[in-house]
């Protein structure tokens, strides 16, 4: 039997299907207004890509902020535990995980077995999260996917407040009016997020190897800004958005192996 994990975040739902050979398929869909529908759509898409039906799944575990609304799941598991599990499977030597999602950033410290020893999060402020990048991209009229490349070409970093994303938006507008190059503004935004996230990282006391995941890890400029701020290199998995869903699927697979449904 196969197992699946579904991670319902604030902006997207992710589904991962595991076979004995590893990841059979995965999908990412925008959450929209109904988390339960997004979870269903994500699972259906992953099932389609894997070429199987839901009857082939022996266990489905949900995680993420919207996990309680996933009615196809037989169990739920905390996001932190799933992130740790997924990260340790992808990179066995990982000891610290930095997850920057749409509306929160989390940092986990793992033990040698991938168990979570400690974690801290920034849930109170958008200025350490992906929503801030989305807002900046909109104001600057650039694609979210282009932020990284533009910032890496920057000559300097325009000062942007790390205290408040809403306040920072007005600073960005001021920079636009002052004809500051877009790349420099984006580099400043990345630095502001890196400053905010680094305090969360330091709360748990990071140990290498450090893995960065979550949708924001797709932004290479953000990864570099965080590396510069923290003073060490970050490993980024091929599909950084699906780490928690992968962890949920791994836990589902373990439950299957133990004969639990």
């Amino acid at each position, binding site marked *: 039997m196969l197992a699946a994990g579904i991670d319902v975040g604030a902006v997207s739902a992710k589904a991962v299907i595991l076979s004995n050979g590893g990841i059979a398929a995965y999908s990412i869909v925008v959450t929209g207004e109904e988390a339960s529908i997004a979870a269903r759509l994500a699972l259906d898409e992953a099932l389609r890509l894997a070429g199987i039906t839901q009857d082939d799944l022996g266990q489905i575990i949900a995680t993420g*902020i919207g996990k*309680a609304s996933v009615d196809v799941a037989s*169990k*739920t*598991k*905390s*996001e*932190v*535990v799933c992130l740790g599990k997924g990260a340790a499977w992808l990179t066995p030597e990982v000891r610290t995980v930095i997850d920057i999602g749409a*509306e*929160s950033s989390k940092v986990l410290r793992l033990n040698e077995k991938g168990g*979570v*020893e*400690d*974690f*801290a*999060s920034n*849930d*109170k402020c958008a200025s350490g999260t992906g929503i801030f990048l989305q807002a900046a991209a909109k104001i600057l009229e650039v694609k979210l996917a282009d932020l990284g490349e533009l910032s890496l070409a920057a000559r300097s970093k325009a000062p942007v407040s790390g205290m408040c994303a809403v306040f920072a938006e007005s600073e960005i507008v001021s920079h636009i009016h002052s004809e500051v190059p877009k790349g420099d503004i984006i580099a400043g935004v990345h630095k502001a997020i890196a400053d905010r996230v680094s305090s969360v990282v330091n*709360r748990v006391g990071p140990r290498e190897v450090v893995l960065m995941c979550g949708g924001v890890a797709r932004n290479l400029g953000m990864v570099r800004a965080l590396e510069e701020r923290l003073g060490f290199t970050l490993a980024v998995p091929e599909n950084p958005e699906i780490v928690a869903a992968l962890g949920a699927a791994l836990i589902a697979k373990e439950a299957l192996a133990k004969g639990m449904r």
Partner: protein
Amino acid sequence: MAVPNSVKKFALETTSGVSRLMKEYALRARKARDEDGAKICWHWAVNHAEILRAFNIYPFMVELHSGFLSAKGEIVKYLELAEGWGFSRDACTLHRACLGHSLAGEEAMLPNPDMLVCTTSCDSTAKALFPVADHFKVPYYIVDLPWNVQAAEGPAVQEHRVRYYQQQLEDLISFLEKNTGETLDQERLRESFRQANRLHYAWQDIYKLKANSPCPMGGKDEVVATGVLMQLAGDRQGADFMERLRDEVAERVARGQGVIENEQHRILWLGPYIAYDLALFDHFEDLGAVVVKAELDQMFAGIYGGNLDPDNPLESFARKHISYMYNGVYENRIELARRVVRDLKIDGIVYMCAFFCHLLGGAQRAIKDAMSEEFGVPTMVIDVDNVDPRSYNPDMMRSRIEDFLEMLG
């Protein structure tokens, strides 16, 4: 972790009477003011209720009232009134709510004051209350509480600090005599201290009973009972209440009755509470965990001492105030946490940092490190306001608690 709704919870019966107790106290105060010329004194933590009751004064703890308003879902209009008046949104929410309530002109559970008394126990209270004094045009007295720096200077509260604070208390008494027209009645002071001790002894007994597994009293009951410590120290009805509560908790222990069946985790809560989401304690219990102890009560009734001596009132009161755990170096708080973790078999700590409180957040890293290194007990730090719900995401908070409890195993 699935969140079952089927976990059976056993709340205490005695605490369900706290709301009535508080209402009756407010009614008593208003009646005494209207018919007997009693004075109403608003005061702030750490407070002097036991001394105020030696006069014909009814003390009201204003932070507690802000907590009531928040728990009832009514605080935002008062915060907005204060903000509209020009009180900074970056200032303490408790003070903001107090000013807003003053501007609203409503009495109900908090009769208008004839005088204000506070200490310098936190960095902003004293100045934040000048607008309140101006609004009511009432006398305002600030008692200077010296820091307890015992960890740096030795094992005991320094005697010169005790003597200094005793003098402060004598000056407070002069202020009270002047503004009531009374002379301090020593026997009335002794009686107030005796009633305060009854309250404290019962609370200390409850603390010891909590060492039992399963824990007989949960977080919500503790928070509600702490309100009695804040408001009714020195009052006979407050002491009666706490003894009834102690007896009910003891009965539970005798029966082996816990807050929940199958208790898996025992949590210590540091810092203030999320007053507008007391249901959060239920969420812990849904997940098999009990918030066994919170530390905020230690501003009012020490679990390891801090009792008053009716025959040596001012010195004992000075020692109690100086040695409370938020006053001075944070080693005091670490030592308190250390003892509670050991006594109550705690396996996880939640440390709440209130957004606008500059008093309570500073020790978070030190306590977290100490508890991890000495006991292997992890701490989750949460950043949230204690009475203002406007920046709060209850789903996110529950998700973090689930994360934490799953991490505990």
